């Protein structure tokens, strides 16, 4: 069966560009959609067609369901790829696609709805004998009940929003006194972010690893896993470095977790590419966390080690085609690391740093891949997620790929805005990372109040002077700004 002739990509930035690339290789025409501020964004330039959605505010553009459906119809596209974020996990959007005769490239809307409800997802998993973190199976607004449950589970507990995602509405509570206040603030945050303030509790785990399995499931009942990714290095509950294989993995554990992940996918009736997330504790016990019902940000490391293009698989599955391989056909080779390059100031608590990219040079060399949504001169808008690009490295061993990534990051030039690059270099260079002692508390434990090292400051100072001399030709050509004499003026006759 053939796949689609034309699809709409309801996203922006690096992920939209990445999807367009596979579409082009498959001969599928692409329609980019964009907001006013994104008229010259990379995904717009890359696609075969581009249609303006509306104003920059997400609700009027990338979250505007009605408008995106209308654009799909008017461009005669057959399917929509939602990427990640925005509408990717929105069951209402998937439902609108279904009723409009448009293929949503992702799971059916009913599955998005079920797995989007985190306590329902926990109940589904429990019924399939998938180990879940001890905690509640029904969400509640009732603070008295939540306090009782916390006593039953035992502090510290994790307060989570039933409609949660992206760390919103999440709190760790260490003692009963802090419980009420944490619940109130988490409820209000969740209410604002998801329109649903109800909460549930899970036992807080000490320094677990975040290990997830990439899954593919087709319409014909075939389910396979493409091994694990470890994504323990996080800030604000958001991943910044991912790798595969996990340094904690053994063949036996991988086999066991892979089997559980397959039953999790089967239990929920899942179709298309998805990810089953687990927490792995220090004793080797693992617990279901959630199913991510979309293409993951960190999917490239799986592609680089298995050789399977996940976007291509998503398109084939959405078109109704069966998987062309079985579990036994899938192998992985070497080690891969992904670093997320965010427009953030790592010295200022990762505060966003939008602005114009004044200078941009991508690293290259053996084993490198860069999924980028920016270019030199691009103005990074303040309206959307601060991800700029993802740098992916592969090599034969973990140590080789770690060194390779450090080398590449040192050659990744982005000037004009602050980025996470210098922070990532220091994390990868740290002895604890090198040893593979990674866990979700890693950044807080080892990199609190990080600031950039001072080596190379003299090089920067000299570069400043050299640029002054080179750009102004003869020193005397340096023009002073009004109101204050520069040394060039006060020194008199002086030449190089």
């Amino acid at each position, binding site marked *: 069966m053939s796949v689609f002739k034309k699809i709409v990509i309801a996203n922006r930035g690096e992920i939209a560009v990445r999807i367009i690339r596979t579409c082009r290789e498959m001969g599928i025409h692409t329609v980019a959609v964009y907001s006013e501020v994104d008229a010259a964004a990379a995904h717009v330039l890359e696609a075969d067609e581009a249609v303006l959605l509306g104003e920059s505010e997400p609700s009027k553009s990338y979250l505007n369901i009605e408008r995106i459906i209308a654009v799909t119809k008017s461009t005669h596209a057959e399917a929509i790829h939602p990427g990640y974020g925005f509408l990717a996990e929105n069951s209402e959007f998937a439902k609108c696609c279904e009723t409009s005769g448009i293929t949503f490239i992702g799971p059916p809307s009913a599955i998005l709805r079920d797995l989007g409800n985190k306590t329902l997802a926990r109940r589904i998993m429990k019924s399939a004998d998938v180990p879940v973190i001890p905690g509640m199976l029904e969400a509640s607004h009732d603070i008295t009940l939540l306090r009782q449950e916390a006593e039953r589970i035992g502090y510290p507990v994790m307060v989570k929003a039933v409609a949660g995602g992206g760390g919103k509405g999440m709190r760790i509570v260490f003692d009963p006194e802090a419980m009420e206040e944490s619940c109130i603030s988490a409820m209000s945050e969740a209410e604002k972010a998801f329109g649903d303030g109800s909460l549930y509790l899970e036992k807080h785990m000490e320094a677990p690893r975040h290990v997830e399995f990439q899954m593919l499931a087709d319409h014909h009942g075939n389910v396979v896993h493409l091994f694990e990714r470890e994504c323990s290095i996080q800030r604000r509950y958001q991943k910044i470095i991912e790798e595969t294989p996990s340094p904690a993995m053994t063949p036996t554990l991988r086999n066991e977790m892979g089997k559980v992940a397959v039953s999790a996918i089967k239990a929920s009736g899942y179709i298309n590419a998805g990810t089953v997330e687990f927490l792995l504790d220090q004793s080797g016990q693992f617990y279901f966390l959630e199913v991510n019902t979309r293409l993951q940000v960190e999917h490239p490391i799986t592609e680089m080690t298995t050789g399977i293009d996940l976007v291509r698989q998503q398109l084939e599955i959405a078109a109704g085609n069966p998987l062309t391989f079985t579990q036994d056909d899938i192998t992985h080779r070497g080690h891969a690391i992904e670093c997320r390059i965010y*427009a953030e*100031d790592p010295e*200022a608590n990762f*505060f*966003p*740093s*939008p*602005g114009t990219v*004044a*200078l941009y*040079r991508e690293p290259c060399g053996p084993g490198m891949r860069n999924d980028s949504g920016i270019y030199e001169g691009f103005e990074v808008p*303040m*309206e*959307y*997620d*601060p991800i700029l690009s993802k740098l992916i490295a592969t090599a034969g061993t973990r140590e080789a790929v770690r060194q390779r990534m450090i080398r590449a*990051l*040192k*050659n*990744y*030039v*982005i*000037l*004009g805005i*602050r*980025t996470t*690059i*210098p922070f990532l*270099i220091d994390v990868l260079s740290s002895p604890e990372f090198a040893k593979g002692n990674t866990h979700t508390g890693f950044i807080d434990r080892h990199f609190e109040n990080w600031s*950039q*090292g001072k080596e*190379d*400051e*003299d*090089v*920067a*100072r*000299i*570069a*400043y*002077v*050299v*640029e*002054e*001399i*080179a750009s102004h030709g003869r*020193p005397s050509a340096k023009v*002073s*700004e*009004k*109101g*204050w*004499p*520069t*040394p060039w003026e006060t*020194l008199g006759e*002086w*030449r*190089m």
Partner: protein
Amino acid sequence: MKYRLKILEEMVDVVVSHSDSEHTVQAIIEGKEYHVHYQSIVDRCFHLVMNGKSTEVFVATGNQGKHIFVNGRTFFVQDADQLLAHRARRRGPEETPGEVTPPMPSVVLRIMVKEGERVKRGQGIVVVSAMKMQTTLVAPSDGTVKKIHTSIDAKVAPGDILVEIEEEAVENE
């Protein structure tokens, strides 16, 4: 030839002296001597050989300084003399602490005070949002809100004065 260069809050003198050969300078930074050979490779990219050590650097000129890339780190380097000149031209050399300005380009979500209102140091004045992150800008000192220069949904940038606060005269308690 002396430059006074600032990286963050640290000011350091760079004494540059002339050399006979082209593309060569001598520099002294905090007592350390550097023999520098430089070459402009392409626009804004320079190859430096400092005391025999080779480094590629990238320089982008920004607002009141240069962004300089060295080995994966970026430094914002400012010429203190030029900064002084800039300040003198704009609003006199003295600092003006009674102004609330955003740290990043952002959008105003909420204005939490009214003109004429008395505020305490650290009190929330304006909430701005950038890239899905919200931050509250606080009063830099005790005082009275003199003027509000912004409105909800306004796009603002560092240096824009959103709210002016008149500092309280020091009174006897």
